[in-house]
């Protein structure tokens, strides 16, 4: 985790963090506004309102399934397929 954090800090700093205090405030604002909180609430609510509306997927190759809303491909037997995610969404 520390290695990832180092990398992310490097990336974020180089990209945009000219005003770190303001950026941190914005993280707090985003959290307060429910960007994450709404998802937590939805997940933990007793009355499920998940309808799996985004479960639509397609298969670019045998054994591979891709989910547009997630921009991610998985092996049909389950595992995330990063190489296919790149091929389908990022090449």
């Amino acid at each position, binding site marked *: 985790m520390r290695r990832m954090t180092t990398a992310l800090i490097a990336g974020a700093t180089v*990209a945009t963090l000219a005003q770190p205090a*303001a950026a941190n405030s914005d*993280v707090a604002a985003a959290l307060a506004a429910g960007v*994450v909180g709404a998802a937590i609430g939805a997940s933990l609510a007793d009355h499920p309102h998940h309808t799996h509306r985004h479960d639509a997927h397609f298969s670019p190759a045998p054994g591979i399934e891709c989910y547009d809303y997630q921009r991610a491909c998985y092996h049909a037997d389950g*595992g995330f397929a990063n190489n296919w995610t*790149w091929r389908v969404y990022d090449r």
Partner: protein
Amino acid sequence: MIEAPAPHRAATACLAAALALALAAPPAAAQSQRLAAAWEALISEEEPDIAPAEIAKLNTIAYHAAVARLCEGFDLDVEKIAAASNEAVAAAVAGLEGEALLARHADVLISLGATHGLFLAEGSLHPEAFCAAAAETRDDPEFADLWR
């Protein structure tokens, strides 16, 4: 103005949120590692306007970090993942300035942290298949991975 938390506290909150989602949502199918309900809860209709390719890049970064945490023989290449992070964040905020730039920047980091958490959850639930898929990805000669 809201009091600013330390960055690591925000990241910890994101990770906790993602793991809470994962624990609350069982796999959609018995043979699947994909935590469909958790992804659906995370990716709301109000998601920030990030280009599909940039979302895919964030998935790649978050996944590589999760694999490095869970699978033996996989270590992050810090220079590569830093460069990928720079590219993804810079692309996501391109053309923005001021408050809009800072808001998008925050959205991207939150999304990255939560995505990382969900990949950790998927890998923790099915470590053998998760790491086998990572090995297959690393062996793909067309794909430039971010591990050493």
